[in-house]
């Protein structure tokens, strides 16, 4: 048979064999991945979707650092029980600005795609500090160091700049004020607080997330991030028909 005699000749040439391997192995990825960047229906459009504030971005980085994604997904599948349990199924547009995405692959704990504002800040702080204080059977680790660790904010402009390089539309104004905005978002009575809503929209949550406006902790950042989950856009809550009509 021709395949066998072809291989019989090919396996005598190391470079030829290497090139054949690369060629054969490239096809699948090219066919499945490349079109995702070009077919515009892949991601729903929502011009009103807002960006992560510097504080929320810092919180997201803590979420990544602590490996929360290993036990919590952020992707509600198009299955009845998941929609009943967690809310409307996730749309591609909702993670449009997620570099990288945190869809997850395992639910040792529940999905968090729509956890934002389901619990109070105080509950989130207590729960992160020691989950068993509020959920006795929980097996989640205690993150007691978050409330005592000050958040590093001096380099946030660099973070926003890198985000802009990979495609997130942060403006020069947002980049220049990233440090002040992070401080202001967790300190509602400070003069910096106004700048946050000015740059990121009136609906932006400005609160002393960890209950202590005087210090900016990693707890502030992580809770700010958890409270925005599922709330960057309301596209998923619109009916399928109206979402289609927008396009």
């Amino acid at each position: 048979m021709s395949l066998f005699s072809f291989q019989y000749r090919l396996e005598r040439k190391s470079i030829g064999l290497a090139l054949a391997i690369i060629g054969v192995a490239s096809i699948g990825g090219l066919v499945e991945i490349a079109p995702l960047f070009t077919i515009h229906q892949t991601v729903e459009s929502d011009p009103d979707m807002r960006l992560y504030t510097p504080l929320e971005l810092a919180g997201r980085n803590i979420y990544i650092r602590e490996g929360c994604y290993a036990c919590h997904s952020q992707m509600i599948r198009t299955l009845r029980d998941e929609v009943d349990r967690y809310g409307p199924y996730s749309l591609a547009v909702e993670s449009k600005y997620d570099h990288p995405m945190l869809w997850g692959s395992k639910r040792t704990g529940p999905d968090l795609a729509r956890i934002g504002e389901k619990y109070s800040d105080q509950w989130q702080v207590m729960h992160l500090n020691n989950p068993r204080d509020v959920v006795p059977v929980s097996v989640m680790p205690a993150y007691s160091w978050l409330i005592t660790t000050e958040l590093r904010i001096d380099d946030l402009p660099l973070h926003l700049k890198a985000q802009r390089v990979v495609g997130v539309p942060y403006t020069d104004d947002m980049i220049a004020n990233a440090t002040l905005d992070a401080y202001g978002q967790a300190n509602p009575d400070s003069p910096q607080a106004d700048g946050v809503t000015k740059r990121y929209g009136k609906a932006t949550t400005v609160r002393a997330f960890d209950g202590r406006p005087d210090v900016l902790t990693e707890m502030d950042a992580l809770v700010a991030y958890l409270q925005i989950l599922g709330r960057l856009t309301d596209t998923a809550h619109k009916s399928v028909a109206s979402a289609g009509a927008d396009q």
Partner: protein
Amino acid sequence: MISQLTRIERQRAILISLAVAVCGFLMAIAGHDDPIGIQGVLISLAGVLMIFRIGKDYYAPEPSDERFSRYYDDPAKVGIVLAMVWVVFGLAIGDWVAWQLVQPDLTFGAWSSFGRIRPVHTTSVIFGFGGNALIATSFYVMQRTSRARIPDQVAPWFVVFAYNLFCLLAVTGYMMGITQSKEYAEPEWYADILLVVAWVTYFVVYLRTLARRKEPHIYVSNWYYMAFILVVAMLHIVNNLAVPVSLGHAKSYSLFSGVQDAMTQWWYGHNAVAFFLTSGFLGMMYYFLPMRAGRPIYSYRLSIISFWGITFLYMWAGSHHLHYTALPQWVQTLGMTFSLMLLIPSWASAGNALLTLNGAWDKVRDDATLRFMMVAAVFYGLTTFEGSFMAIRTVNSLSHYTDWTIAHVHAGALGWVAMITFGSIYACVPWLWKHKSMYSARLVEVHFWLALSGTVVYVFAMWNSGLIQGLMWRTYTESGTLAYSFLDSLVAMQPYYVARAIGGLLFLIGGCVGAYNVWKTITMESAGADQVADLPQAAPAGAAVLQPAE
């Protein structure tokens, strides 16, 4: 080992180590206020230690030209030892993580919380153990099947040490909170660059050795090892494209986002399973199983079908990790279809391995080393069947996000990858160190039964918990509401989490027994086993009677 290098090679090795040390030093300065600084110090230390090690024996006499009549096995030997160190470490961390799900306060501060040490476990066993075993055995196999010595004595050392530095940076990084969060691709940009350099060197070593081969045909093991090296390079480079915050920051942001990132990640993730955990280890199996059984491979044609089938079909299958998600349905359907077709080449490989044992089943009964390889082939067949089954969209709706995935992964990782590796290591350690056999055949037997029982306990525990979880999440009451809260399902997991941790403990004890046995074999006094057959073909006529240098 240094005395085997020529003066020029020693100088080159010092220069490379110096370059590594300087890179680390610059990283330490640029990142003095970031965890990357500590990583820089580590890199610098590695370079300096290496310089001292070479410097100590710098003036040792140069090796004689007689070395060209033998294979160059020192890097492979070190790779095997490192693999055994990593497996004990990685299994121990894995079992600790498993106990944390039983007793969540089993931590010692931030560095050891579940989310940080879970990737320490996965990286240590996959890349530390698996990777070192693949590099070491590939150095061994490519020389024997080519009947040629590795042409260079520095490059293979660089591959081994740079690769292990990568693993070390990865593992220490997670504990400090450095991670990209991409599963099985967690290391950050600077470690990724180091791996690319090591990997390109690896491929060049492979090609240069093949170029010197005395056999006209490239043996099937080498096809698989080459596919492993090439495709892992491709996957690694594409999936890790990212923009660092600055040269003084460990943190980077992935070039891709959302749905495109998810597809790229699982194209990578599933093919890390394919080309790291399957192709590479099939290369191992195609050499050590027939050698140990004393039988030729059953079918050359089956090897061809399975090789090209795996290389082509696997690359399409990644999207089955994203069923019912925001990934477009056409990509999900393609992934499912190709996952089902994958069963053909997978079972062709497993069948080829088992049929090779025809006529040697008495050896399987008596020889635990060969039995390791036989059981590995059986688990390979079972796991690939389960994988294709779980890739069916409706089955996946139940299994995804649950412990069933964990069961599947461990049936593959413990039953297939670890078993074929232990079998291959038990086969090649006596060959490498010129002994007639392992230190203790009884201990190999003990290890076999610990590994098998540990795997079975682990996998059954996770199958049970996964099915229960999946069913509880989707059960409705008669009035049309969800029957169980998430916490109900969590409480139901408790007994299975205990059983899983016990299964893991059995497997860990087996790994420790194996490490002890390997160590005792290495340090055993050489019996001067006959090595007439184990020489490159170009050897001068008189070389066959030379005794090993050790």
